[in-house]
């Protein structure tokens, strides 16, 4: 039982890590919670479905969907967030706007595709290969095989490339970055593109394993928020770590508590961190209002 839960936790954790990474990156550079990220995530899966419906092979539909989702993320920034930033909107206003966007996008998906479950899976449901007392299907192996290198790639990107370093600088100290003259609008736009792409990939991966519904985005968002807070806001490895933590806690929790309370565990973790360690594992101390 335990090894299976561990495997399940790892799989869920990888997905949440991808979502959290995107969400956390966006928070680091823009300093607000982009709730619409959950809807953008769902769009990734549904664009793939649309492509597949249209007769495209998944090998073509998937990259197109990722590109399309990144474009959506960019559009949200350009059309809504950037104008708000220009007006000096507070992070609460941005948060409310992003709640509105989330609702609009999720309902558009529901309107266009319907509320029932859609699938892009092909082939029969396989039993899964045995591994240490647990079973893992080829798709699930793919999930881990894609997410882990992807997370590693992002890490390298953040550290080695110029744009990655700039993103980290902006995340670390937005005031200083502004003073030094880093073109923050471009950086922010790029963050949205990258973050949305990661979300799309995560959504597609999970859909290959467990299908898609319009509500999927909401659920992923919740996990993403908890992951970012637990792992550490502003810390890029922290978001990934947080995702893993959430996935593990959710599934290992089942060992002692019945499945229905899985999600409650996650939210209790959220409250715990907010109360006692708002900077999460790896984040920097949350600044309180100075006197």
């Amino acid at each position, binding site marked *: 039982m335990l090894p299976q839960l561990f495997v399940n936790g790892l799989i869920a954790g990888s997905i949440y890590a991808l979502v959290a990474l995107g969400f956390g990156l966006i928070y680091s550079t823009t300093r*607000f*919670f982009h709730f619409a990220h959950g809807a953008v995530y769902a769009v990734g899966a549904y664009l793939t479905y649309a492509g597949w419906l249209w007769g495209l092979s998944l090998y073509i539909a998937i990259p197109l969907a990722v590109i399309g989702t990144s474009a959506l993320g960019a559009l949200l920034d350009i059309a*809504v967030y950037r*104008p*708000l930033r220009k007006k*000096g*909107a*507070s*992070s*609460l*206003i*941005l*948060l*409310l*706007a992003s*709640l*509105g*966007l*989330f*609702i*609009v996008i999720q*309902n*558009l998906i*529901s*309107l266009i595709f319907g*509320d029932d479950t859609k699938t892009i899976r092909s082939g029969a449901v396989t039993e899964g290969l045995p591994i240490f007392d647990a079973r893992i299907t080829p798709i699930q192996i793919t999930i881990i095989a894609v997410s882990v290198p992807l997370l590693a790639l992002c890490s390298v990107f953040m550290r080695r490339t110029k744009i990655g370093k700039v993103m980290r600088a902006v995340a670390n100290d937005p005031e200083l970055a502004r003073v030094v003259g880093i073109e923050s609008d471009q950086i922010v736009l790029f963050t949205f593109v990258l973050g949305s792409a990661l979300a799309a990939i995560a959504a597609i991966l999970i859909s290959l394993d467990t299908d898609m519904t319009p509500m999927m985005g*909401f659920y992923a968002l*919740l996990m993403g*928020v*908890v992951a970012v*807070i637990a792992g550490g806001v502003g810390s890029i490895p922290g978001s990934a770590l947080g995702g893993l933590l959430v996935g593990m806690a959710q599934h290992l929790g089942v060992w002692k508590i019945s499945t*229905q*309370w899985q*999600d*409650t565990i996650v*939210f*209790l973790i*959220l*409250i715990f961190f*907010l*109360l006692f360690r*708002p900077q999460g594992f790896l984040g920097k101390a*949350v*600044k*309180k*209002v100075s*006197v």
Partner: protein
Amino acid sequence: MDYLLHILILINIYIILVISLDLIAGYTGLLSIAHAAFYGIGAYATALLSLHFQTNFLVNMALGMAGAALLGTIIAFPSLRIHDDYFVIATFGFQMIVYSVFNNWVDFTRGPLGIPGIPTASLFGFAIDSHWKFLILSALFACLAYGVVHKLVNSPYGRVLKAIREDEIFARSLGKNVNSYKIQVFAIGGALASVAGNLYAHYVTFIDPTSFTILESILVISMVIIGGAGSLRGPVIGAVVLVILPEALRFVGLPSSVAANLRQIFYGSLLVLMMLYRPQGLIGEFNLQGR
């Protein structure tokens, strides 16, 4: 005509919800997306108590208010230590926890099956068994709620709340026990919201967790913000607008699921547009960027 009564009853119920949330978010500046949790407690309290103990709806209301006040006190605690946007996340976590209790504690709340057959409310032997009677009852409570909050916010008590909203450090330096006030408004606001839940339960006679989700919380805060937080009249107008306008869609003859999506797209878009062009809301006395 019955349809018109139905709309008016709904408006009254939402008036109670927005007034109580305006006290917390509009006047004290504590943005919360947990309001549906209080709403749900009021509904479940009366549903369960009247079915198991055949108690009068007023008794249930009092007990529901007590329960909601207790929850409000708990939710207020993080606000004492956490900065703005993180606090919204905390309220979101609490909302999800309460919802998952409604949905998963099947032995107690019947979970997703909901609670059917909620008895009619009766006032001193007089049964509220028609839409007209319910309209009068709900209007009575709406006026009562409005009156209570109106008296509070226009008194020295309200003055302290407004001070906390703008500058809690200054308020403390003048000798105001800010923490105590924050806890009080959550308890009071929560208790009032539970009154709305009680009325709703007796009106629709069947409740299930889907009426008390995060989306409902977002709807209520949207009504407050769109109408104009911190003005009482504003949120009432917001409630009227957001109940009536989407109902207009019914007359276009669309299937109900489509109408549901369109209604949400409508208010999501309205929220985004308001944030972009008029963040202080329709009435616009207090600007969310007040600091």
